């Protein structure tokens, strides 16, 4: 097994987890873009359309859209359909507030293209770094 790639970012919401990555190169709008009932991406022209964010390390550049989106993350967490962690390039207020109220570990200032969907990612959001184990055949 290859040694992991270690990247240093900035901690936003403290926490720790290790899970599979789900990566998008597009911003995500949680209001209207994600189904609050199950965590599926429902925005039709999104590159993650149809994917489920539940229990994933969700990696995307930043959020956009209505501030009501923060509450969608809270609702997902209550239904146990939230991502295990969030990694952003540049955190924006909607996602930051959402991660705080939903208590989802979050790190930003990470170059998203270093991570591919299917990689195993360890997020240490106490210290603000991540470790990536490359998955063979990861998208």
């Amino acid at each position, binding site marked *: 097994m290859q040694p992991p790639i270690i990247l240093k970012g900035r901690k936003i*919401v403290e926490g720790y987890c290790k899970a599979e990555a789900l990566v998008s190169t597009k911003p995500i709008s949680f209001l209207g873009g994600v189904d*609050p009932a199950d965590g599926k991406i429902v925005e039709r022209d999104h590159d993650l359309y149809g994917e489920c964010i539940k229990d994933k390390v969700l990696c995307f550049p930043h959020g956009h859209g209505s*501030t*009501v989106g923060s*509450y969608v993350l*809270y*609702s997902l967490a209550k239904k146990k359909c939230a991502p295990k962690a969030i990694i952003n390039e540049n955190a924006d207020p909607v996602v930051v*507030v959402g991660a705080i109220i939903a208590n989802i570990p979050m790190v930003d200032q990470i170059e998203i293209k270093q991570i591919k969907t299917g990689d195993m990612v360890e997020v240490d959001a106490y210290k603000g770094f991540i470790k990536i184990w490359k998955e063979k055949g990861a998208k």
Partner: protein
Amino acid sequence: MYLTREEERIYDGEFGWANQICMKILVRLGELFHAKRLIPISSSHVSGVSYKTLGDAPTEFIKALANADAKVKVKSTLNPQSFDCDFLCKRLPSDLWEKQLNVLDCFKKMGFKPSLTCTPYYLEKLQKNAHVAWAESSAVVYANSIMGAWTNREGGPSALAAAIIGKTPDYGMHQAENRQPKVLVKLEKPLSNETEFGALGIFLGKILKEEIPIIQGLQKASKDNLKQLGAALATAGMTNMFYYKTPRMQMDKIEKIGVSAEDLKRTIEKLTTTSTQTPDLIFVGCPHCSLNEIRKTAELIGNRKIKKQTEFWICTSRHIKEKAKKYAEKIEKSGAHVLTDTCAVVTWTEKLGIKTIMTNSAKTAHYAPTLNKAETILAPLKECIKKAYKG
């Protein structure tokens, strides 16, 4: 970010979950924007009150806060909800009305005033240079530009957190250096009505991004028209303030933009999406009408009666409707509806079979195609009234 001992204790949870989560929101946002401290605010205005725009997810969080005994620390007002309790509550499904009332009860329990308006600045005069935390982008621009107050464009959750803590992080529009104009806008032709003011806002919002403009030639503009300009500016872009009186400063280094009559004409044409001559709804009051706008509407109607099969809504706050009682009565006698607590954009117009909305508000014309799934006709008040009344 520097926190006082008391702020630290709140952050650590000594004052319970609700206060802790609100403090965390403010501190993390502050850190994100490089604020050095929290500053006290004199009021908060919260958006995200209409059950139509909220849905169930936020209701759960607002309920959790209310049940955890969160209480506002400063005067805190609320944006419009999805119903009024005289007219729409009888025409829309009762389960929606109940869900809306649940949301409102949670806010009331926390100590919010049920002002239910997007124009909190009509309820109480803000002190000049007062620091506040307001959501509702049109009110943010009005507060910064016309009232001389200082506020960032808060989101629903951050304004809620600021209300509970009574403070906001000190960054952005709270700092004098970020309130300087960067662009000088010259108008080729003076603006002649509120719809043109709105169109200017939409046009500028798209090209300015976050920059603050000085707009020349508006010294004598009415506050009602400036309200339309600011609402549209915030709708189309991220600008939080404009100057309509030229401040004393060096003008040679500032970027200059010219706006032609053709630019505005094209903007208004784009905001009209249909060629139909028979709108299902004629709507004024986005943002909510001032006393003066209600009076003007009543005067333009005169003693006429509304055309058959025509629906005309004038939306405002309870506060203004009470003050404008004799004009409101006159308008209602003509067959139109003066609705409080709500507006066409945040209620379920499509459930009422409304497919085309005629309005004098550029902001509504911008939002209605997506939020109301309606076609739009944008035209000044005079034309809206001409469409609604005989003779």
